């Protein structure tokens, strides 16, 4: 293999990106429907950040007595009590919500006291409690942050490009967000405040991709004023392909360490990010661009060459 590797890549690619768009549209539609079904059937696995309650990670002296832990929790804890093994044979994770009218913090203290009494030598590696009031607010502010991020980016892209670019980008990013949420729902990964951070990062990365895509498209639209839009898109994407491959590979390689060795805390976050990188790259080509292709663009100051009816409208 020649070094640097970049020399082994062909100078030019001739993929028919646009030709695959109808299939991609069906694929995306199926995924979105799948996500919708998953939301409807099993919903999201909402973390205590959003529903309130307590999460306790314990370490017992011997193998964790899951059944007894569950019994203790059911006796003193509260609703939706769950116990599962975590982090080795001696570890377990307990989750519950306080009974109606009991403060989450008080319930936690009661459970901790009871556990210490019932299982001598038990250690609390981690205890997280979120009251009902705060969790409601966190949920609201989390989704508000997502909405505002999308709006601001729409505005920025509109300002830098054209409205249809902005809408194409936002629809594509919405597509990414929906599918990412769908994936979290299908896999029943916990959806917490950290997931919102992961989603916002995914949005940032995806938007980044859209900007790079649009930048090349805009440049080529100026260069090839009379070429049909579909061909310009194909050309732009082929020119960009080597960069897309290298950047995508770098990002996924970089995150692979955290994905496999980051442990259970980091896994949902990094997994969401990796998925977001893949889906964000895909949606640049197969959601954002097709929307622009269907809608048509204003092509600068060229002499009116109505290639498509869509152009004549703008």
């Amino acid at each position: 293999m020649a070094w640097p590797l970049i020399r082994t890549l062909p100078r030019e690619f001739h993929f028919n990106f646009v030709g695959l768009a109808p299939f991609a549209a069906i694929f995306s539609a199926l995924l979105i429907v799948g996500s919708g079904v998953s939301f409807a059937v099993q919903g999201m696995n909402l973390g205590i950040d959003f529903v309130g309650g307590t999460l306790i990670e314990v370490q017992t002296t011997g193998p964790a007595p899951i059944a007894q832990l569950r019994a203790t929790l059911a006796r003193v804890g509260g609703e939706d009590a769950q116990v599962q093994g975590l982090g080795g044979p001696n570890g377990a994770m307990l989750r519950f919500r306080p009974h109606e009218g009991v403060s989450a913090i008080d319930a936690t203290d009661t459970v901790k006291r009871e556990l210490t009494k019932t299982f001598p030598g038990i250690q609390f590696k981690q205890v997280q409690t979120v009251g009902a009031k705060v969790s409601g607010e966190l949920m609201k502010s989390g989704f508000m942050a997502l909405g505002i991020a999308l709006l601001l980016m729409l505005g920025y892209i509109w300002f830098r490009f054209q409205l249809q670019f902005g809408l194409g980008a936002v629809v594509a990013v919405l597509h990414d967000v929906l599918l990412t949420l769908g994936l979290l729902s299908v896999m029943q990964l916990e959806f917490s405040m950290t997931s919102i951070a992961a989603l916002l990062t995914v949005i940032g990365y995806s938007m980044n991709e859209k900007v790079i895509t649009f930048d090349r498209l805009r440049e080529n639209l100026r260069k090839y004023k009379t070429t049909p839009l579909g061909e310009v898109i194909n050309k732009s994407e082929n020119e960009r392909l080597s960069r897309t491959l290298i950047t995508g590979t770098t990002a996924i390689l970089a995150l692979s360490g955290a994905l496999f060795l980051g442990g259970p805390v980091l896994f949902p976050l990094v997994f969401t990010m990796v998925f977001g990188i893949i889906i964000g790259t895909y949606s640049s080509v197969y959601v954002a661009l097709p929307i622009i292709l269907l809608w048509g663009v204003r092509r600068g100051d060229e002499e009116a060459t109505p290639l498509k009816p869509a152009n004549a409208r703008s």
Partner: protein
Amino acid sequence: MIAPSRWKTIAVVISIIFGVLFTLPNVLPQNMRDALPGFLPKKTLNLGLDLQGGSYLLLEVDTKALRVEKLTNLIEDTRTTLTEAGIDFSGLGQAQGVVSARISDPARMNEALNAVRKGVGSQMKTGGRDVAISTGPDQTIRISLVEQAMTAEAGKAVDQSIEIIRRRIDALGTKEPAIQRQGIDRIAIQAPGESDPEKLKNIIGQTAKLTFQMVDDSVTVAEASQGRTPPGSIVLPSGDDYAPAYVVKKRALVTGEMLTDAYQVFDQQSGGAAVHFQFNSQGAKRFGDATSNGIGKRFAIVLDGKVISAPVINSAITGGSGQITGNFTPESANNLAILLRAGALPAPLIPEQQSTVGSELGADAIKAGAISLAIGGGAILVFIILAYGLFGVFAAIALIVNVLLIFGFMSMTQSTLTFPGIAGLILTLAVAVDANVLIYERVRDEAHAGRTPLAALEHGYQRALVSIIDANITSAISALIMMGFGSGPIRGFAITLLTGVVSSVFTAVIITQLLIGFWYRATKPKTLPIV
């Protein structure tokens, strides 16, 4: 643009020095850090609680209780004012947050109104009074709290609470607690290394309002409980769950604010733990007067609405000091002393959120984070060098400086690095390399289009810069929003991301440009290694 200019060289050298200096303390052991000369930075990264272990507590100031207390005061003020003016009234009380009283003589309505206007409520800082006074049907005077005043009051209560909590926690000896206001009426407390939040809650959860009140012996508790409490008296439970309640006068002789000192002692008679206290001159005088007038009677020591003890006055206590005995252990007596010294909270605090991470788990997280970062960073460096050869080496150097800058800046500003923040950092590095990929791919395009190496480099940098800035602004937008909305770990994540965006653009563009510039000047190549 490609030719290395002086300002660019200077900027890069300064940034490298900055990065190295501020990152250095993180890799030095504690004793070497201490030995550094004074002008060098010594701060290490501020690790989040999820990485170093510790407790986090989010408290909300109970503004409802504050409002109730304020209304009670209004009622008492109104009673005093009207009584002093010699105006007869009836039905004094409050309903739905409005205090009202019926003036018995309709002819004295105006007089009563004027008296209340003067005697009830107080001037606000922003101008205007903190109460609104009006007349209602059937000769009533209505007094309500102005919302604006309530908000100001709540804000003041939060500020005072923070101050008092700080004093209490400092007395506890917890290491470097961070106490911050969050939103309008919340207080966030972070105590690194503290593995037992109950200890914190014990000392924060108590209002610690101390009063000395006379015991009302005119009725028995049983009579009072049946609704025959004399006006001006009240039934209070005992602090000891098994002891009977007391009937005490509402008026406080002396309050906790008049204390100058309090500490735990052992009672000489019983040998049990007690709290010794010292009044200021005002408190000493009032306590002295009350005790000399009340020999043989009992006074109650009331803490947060519960009677701790009710000793009989044997002689006048004029020295301004005394002892509180009760059902104390040395520890609880010491806690009470701490609370009394720090002062009473203006309103109760309700814990809303709490988290504790054991130091062991934190250490595991640091290890996992460091390994992830090393693997991620290493993978990027190897891949970029494999892909772009010499230019890849330039990009790799820029990336290393980038890491130094991010760590240096975060150490300098003491921004919190959290576990999720590490994942954010890894992605930031990948996106930073993307800037180089964009530039190099552009350079390749330009060279393939037939430009000379120099022209290809010039054009490549120029054209790619626009895309890079556009793309990074979108990342910056999402980071800024996370900073605005997020709390705790999310904020840390966002700060890492934002710092990364800024330093990435600088290193990926300027540093590689400079290195390529020097390389070009030295070798005058006919072809570029990436073409």
